């Protein structure tokens, strides 16, 4: 069993302590946004925020987040009522296949939480751990910038 705060509400999950947070979110809590990409912390598709920091949920055992505050993309808004960052990604049409985008957005959300008005160089540096294969990088950078304005 593990208990933590997820997108502003308390949840208790029944999972083996070594279960990566990613599988707790997807398999246990039926959330879609955090994605399996590599399971190795190399691509960032699984990125979520834990206590305001961007983490690879594929590498974070659920036992490590006991009592912590987890934010996933679902916590930023909905398709009908998108949050500011989500709206920026829609405005910039910053997706092709979109599979990497939730991780990109959570990486960006963690940056903006600490640095509300980042420079272009700061955005690039912050996004470095996350991979996009479609080549949507220019739009992702613009969307993060837009969300900071």
């Amino acid at each position, binding site marked *: 069993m593990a208990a933590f705060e997820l997108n502003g509400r308390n949840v208790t999950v029944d999972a083996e302590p070594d279960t990566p947070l990613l599988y707790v979110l997807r398999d246990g809590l*039926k959330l879609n*946004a955090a994605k399996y990409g*590599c399971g190795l912390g190399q691509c960032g598709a699984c990125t979520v925020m834990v206590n305001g920091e961007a983490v690879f949920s594929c590498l974070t055992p659920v036992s490590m987040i006991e009592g912590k505050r987890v934010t996933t993309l679902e916590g930023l808004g909905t398709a009908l009522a998108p949050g500011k960052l989500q709206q920026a990604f829609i405005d910039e049409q910053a997706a092709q296949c979109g599979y990497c985008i939730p991780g990109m957005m959570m990486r960006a959300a963690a940056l903006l939480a600490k640095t509300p008005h980042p420079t272009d160089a700061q955005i690039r540096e912050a996004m470095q751990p996350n991979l996009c294969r479609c080549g949507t990088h220019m739009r992702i950078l613009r969307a993060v910038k837009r969300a900071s304005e």
Partner: protein
Amino acid sequence: MKRREFLARSGALVVSFALPRATAQEGGGAGSSNLPGSLAKAPALDAWIRVGANGSITVFTGKAELGQGIKTALLQIAAEELDVAFAALTIVTADTARTANEGYTAGSNSLKDSGVAIRNAAAQVRALLVAQAAKRLGAGADSLHTADGAVVSGDGKRIPYAELVDGLDLHVEAAPMSTFKDPKQYRVVSRPVARVDIPAKVSGGAAYVQDLRLPGMVHARVVRPPSYGATLAAVDEAGAAPFGAKVVRDGSFLAVVAPREWSAIKAMRALERSARWDERARLPDIAHLADAVLGLPAEDMVVEDHHAAAPGSARTLEATFTRHYQVHGSIGPSCAVAWMKDDGLTIWSHTQGVYPDRQAIAEMLGLPPARIRMIHAEGSGCYGHNGADDAAADAALIATRLPGTPVRVQWMREQEHAWEPFGPAMVTKVRAALDGSGRIVDWDYGVWSNSHSTRPGPAGSLLAAQHGAKAFAPPRQKVSKSADGLGDRNSVPLYSIPNLHVVHHFLPDMPVRVSALRSLGAYMNVFSIESFMDELAAAAGADPVEFRLSHLEDARGRDVVQAAARRFGWPRGGSAPAGHGYGFAFARYKNHAAYCAVAVEVAWDAERSRARVLRAAAAVDSGQVVNPDGLRNQLEGAILQSASWTLFEKVSFDRQRIRSTDWSTYPILRFDGVPEKVEIEILDRPGAPYLGSGECGQGPAAAAIANAVARASGKRLRDIPFRG
């Protein structure tokens, strides 16, 4: 016998005779009738457009959303010709129970195939609605027009489509000709309409097959062999039990199934540890790639051969180019869900071809295809034939062992990296002669390559079928000539050259598993041709852009070259600041699809022998533009992806096993390598046919980078990837 009757009576024969199989597989070529686009394959109007009793309109396509924005583009086309609001339409994509068989969503053919079919169907449905209204009003159809989902009479009387549904029969064969809206009247097509799939993707909606959760669904993982052709000698199946997992074994196909995903992963790892395999693979010596490729037996096919009188040659140049095996590298490894029920098997897959993949799976399972329904559900971007079809086959095979239970198979990262069919290694050799005035008078070119399409089709193209007890053999590939080409795609330069000889040295033996990767042979052929054009320009003392223009007669091609040069700010002579280089390249994809020219600026790090692309400017002519922002998105992506392939990417292996199994052993572009600026200029051609454009940037971007590096560093890099 009239031609039409002959076609009707022997259609199947004509299709298989007229179309080389490889072309048919890539979704190209013409159909069996004179109907435009995919209407030839599915002539009934209601195969494409249906109007519900309440007036709701649904568009159907046999093509799949791969992240290229095809849903949005097809909806735009339908909304435009139907004269309804874009938001009022819904779309159903590739599903063997609901949509036409449009083969594969590949080869940048979706607008040419499905877009043309939907445009014609929509225009004809609109005409039928007008005819209904004319009957109702007792007015001539000519006196009526349509606007925003209604037929409007000359005196302003408005009849919504919903009121015209009664008695409307769309189950009729489409006519060969349609009356289209004048492109000048377009309100939806040629506008940057926001993609319909993006809101769910940025908010955690169920957007992918990975997000499909069916009642009682279990999680499966496949234990793949360590190398091609390895057979399972022994495994301790009891090792799965501590994780509550069941084992499914069929010959050397080994999988585990558990209620929880993490348990399935742990069970898979346990079986991996205990499995013993007999390995037999003999992979080529990758340290000598050109020798390995050229050493394979070849079947030669002349692609082009023409000769004309020309001035004598003053100077001859030659060069050899190589390209390593490269992965599709989908960020999300392949995934599928299959559910065996009494009434048949249903499979959800991010396959590019629900019909052909179903055919292969049916053969593997010994089931009639009609017992299988295959539904496309989006996956991570594929850029060609990745593990999608194989994952679907895995899920199908496992599901038949667990009747009544939905089975979700998710490949692991190392499985996608090691088992997807790679883009083939290639070698090209070119020799060309310049006359005394610096014009090309002779061009001799050879391309050595495996097939670029080993898609299903036959069961033997699927890993589960190869590894299963029946051990289906991968089909032997044959060389064939087609309008689109495979390894020979874009092997003929578009330039005017009086003497030209191009040969495809087709390599049927495939020591490494390969198939279609975005743009197939065009990437390597355009890289080679356009790199060599710069070498020739330098030898002729000519500006690279002017040198190309002086050999290019095609007016649209010239426009694209000039537009890219202008947008980039190409200086005559192409000189860049110290340490930087400008490079240019151009091609018309397949020599009959979109025109694309790319100019780049690179910075050269001499110490590390590394290039970074600082900016790119491209121009594209894809005929009538449907969604300019979608086209820009595709082109931006093509340039960045091609930069990644060209600068960084190669599959590594020893003589037995694939060794690049993750993003550290197979690095790709990250944000630190992303340009500062990428600009795309679109040359719209209102009313002109759609020209496939999703793949047109791969080759030009690669060559532009090589040319920029050569000018920045003095080093001509002919071997992809440039990182060595």
